[in-house]
């Protein structure tokens, strides 16, 4: 029904069944994108209510129980239903196969099954939150979660358990795809860094998520059957729960940040018109982060009653894992040297990412020092640290990737000046929101407090003011992206002058991605005199 040359994956088939039963990695990416956006706004609403609540020292919006359920919802929805799936399932699904010249992922039907696991897990957890929510925090520490937690803990924990399968199957799909479906000529050192980062993320996805599955099953067994596994009232050891929970949850924070690092490593060379500085170092830093990331979880438990020996070992290993991240920041900065830097929206988001991630990473060094962590753990210093990495890093990277691949995904261009304004607004709104929380943290303001001593109020008011700016900065893209779909001008195959395989095919791409499987002739990010040298030979 469409002439072959203008048939795209969007109009190749129509109807609800063509979406809900699709095995096209590009459509599944859009299905995930819808889910991600939905859960981002639910988590965002919870965040807004939290910031409103904390404007005054006393209870403002409701009872302490309401606040406890609010921050638990914010934590669970943001961690498991937005941050962990965000980049791998949307841009990973859409762009990775195109970047390596493949027609689809290794197991397309498994990919669709992953989406259904994600949606099923999400709906079960949302049901638990709507029915009354749970008041344990996203960490479900024992023995509170077994005997003292009220609310629909079993339903929510089961929802997270189900969504875990989506992570495992997606990771498995990506790993086999990168190994087996690379186009001819696409050697490992010609892979774009986004593919390497998504590969490293997938390693963590399949090696850490099963441990979460078992931990949540044991938690359910203890709460439902009253058998002694973790709570001392039944002879168990609560610190064992913390060990098993953080064995997953620390690598999980690397699941959240590694894809964003991959996106930034794609954007910086393109808008600097220069090869990435130290490609091999950046690539092996991603793998190193994925590997060493499994050795450091004990730094969440320095004051939890862990043995002195373990605390010393985990402190040293946590400093080790910081080195690859530092190397990446230096390499991004060095890439700018002697480049032709353009400041389009993706590049502004990338600058924002590097700035905020640097601050987030450096504050991590404070937390790895044992005595400082003893003072600041469980305070707002920690809240500020992980928001700088998650929101300043992962979400900024998500928006950077979105702005960078939007023309390829939708075939439309968005208004660049509005996008740049949104990037700058988000950057300043973010800093005003979370930098005061560092000061609050060192002052000793504990986490998860609805009411706090009055002398901390000034910083909370500043933080809440920043939150409103940040919320506006995140809502803006919704408008101009919608506008771009309706009336944005058509995007060419390569609007940014990038060199990857995905820019050698039409935007939006045809269902089979490439008319003929491309052969790769050179490494990524090659420019001469500012002109891109495409990875795909003259196809």
């Amino acid at each position, binding site marked *: 029904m469409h002439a072959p040359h203008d048939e795209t994956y969007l109009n190749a088939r129509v109807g609800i069944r063509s979406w809900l039963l699709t095995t096209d990695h590009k459509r599944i990416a859009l299905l995930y994108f819808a889910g991600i956006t939905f859960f981002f706004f639910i988590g965002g609403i919870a965040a807004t209510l939290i910031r409103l609540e904390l404007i005054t020292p006393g209870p403002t919006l409701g009872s302490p129980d309401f606040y406890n359920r609010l921050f638990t919802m914010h934590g669970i929805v943001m961690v498991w239903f937005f941050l962990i799936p965000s980049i791998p399932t949307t841009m990973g699904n859409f762009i990775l196969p195109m970047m390596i010249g493949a027609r689809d992922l290794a197991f397309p039907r498994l990919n669709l099954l992953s989406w259904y696991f994600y949606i099923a897990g999400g709906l079960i957890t949302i049901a638990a939150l709507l029915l009354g929510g749970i008041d344990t925090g996203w960490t479900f520490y024992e023995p509170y979660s077994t005997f003292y937690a009220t609310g629909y803990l079993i339903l929510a924990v089961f929802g997270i358990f189900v969504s875990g399968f989506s992570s495992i199957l997606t990771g498995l799909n990506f790993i086999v795809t990168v190994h087996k479906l690379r186009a001819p000529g696409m050697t490992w050192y010609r892979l774009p860094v986004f593919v390497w980062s998504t590969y490293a993320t997938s390693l963590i996805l399949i*090696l850490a998520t099963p441990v979460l599955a078992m931990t949540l099953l044991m938690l359910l067994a203890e709460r439902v059957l009253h058998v002694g596994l973790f709570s001392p*009232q*039944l002879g168990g050891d609560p610190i064992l729960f913390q*060990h098993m929970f953080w064995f997953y949850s620390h690598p999980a924070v690397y699941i959240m940040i590694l894809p964003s690092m991959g996106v930034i490593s794609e954007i910086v060379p393109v808008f600097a018109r220069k090869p990435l500085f130290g490609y091999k170092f950046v690539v092996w830093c991603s793998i190193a982060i994925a590997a060493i990331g*499994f050795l450091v979880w004990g730094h969440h438990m320095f004051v939890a*009653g862990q*043995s*002195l020996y*373990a605390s010393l*070992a985990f402190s040293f290993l946590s400093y080790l894992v910081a080195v690859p991240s530092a190397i990446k920041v230096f390499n991004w900065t060095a890439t700018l040297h002697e480049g032709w830097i353009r400041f389009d929206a993706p590049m502004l988001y990338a600058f924002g990412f590097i700035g905020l991630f640097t601050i987030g990473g450096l504050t991590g060094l404070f937390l790895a020092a044992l005595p400082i962590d003893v003072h600041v753990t469980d305070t707002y210093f920690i809240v500020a640290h992980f928001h700088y990495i998650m929101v300043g890093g992962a979400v900024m990277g998500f928006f950077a990737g979105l702005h960078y691949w939007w023309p390829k995904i939708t075939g439309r261009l968005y208004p660049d000046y509005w996008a740049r304004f949104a990037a700058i607004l988000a950057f300043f709104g973010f800093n005003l929101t979370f930098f005061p929380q560092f000061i609050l943290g060192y002052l000793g303001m504990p986490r998860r407090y609805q009411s706090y001593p009055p002398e901390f109020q000034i910083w909370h008011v500043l933080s809440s003011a920043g939150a409103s700016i940040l919320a506006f900065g995140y809502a803006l893209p919704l408008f101009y992206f919608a506008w771009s779909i309706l009336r944005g001008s058509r995007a060419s195959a390569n609007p940014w002058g990038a060199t990857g395989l995905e820019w050698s095919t039409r935007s939006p791409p045809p269902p089979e991605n490439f008319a003929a499987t491309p052969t790769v002739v050179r490494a990524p990010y090659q420019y001469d005199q500012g002109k891109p040298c495409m990875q795909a030979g003259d196809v």
Partner: protein
Amino acid sequence: MSAATIWKCWFALMLLLAATTASAFVPLGSANIVISLAIAVAKALIVLLFFMELRGSRALVRAFAAAGFFWLLIMIVLTGADYWHRTDALAPIDQVR
């Protein structure tokens, strides 16, 4: 992989099973757990290398197989290190029955 190899492996597995069960009843103190785990590793290797044909597989498949066990080892060793060095003074807690 020929039938003969399969049944030779099966026989070796049966021998190892007998050995591990027998050795469990010999009072060797903490050596018992070491022996039983060593025999278990031996049996697992027979199944992995011969029945699951890891012996003839490409290096990549062997790496995938080893990765799972290696990461499990990381978890066991690091949590075990904590428990090994833990000196707790147990306090009474009213057992909830």
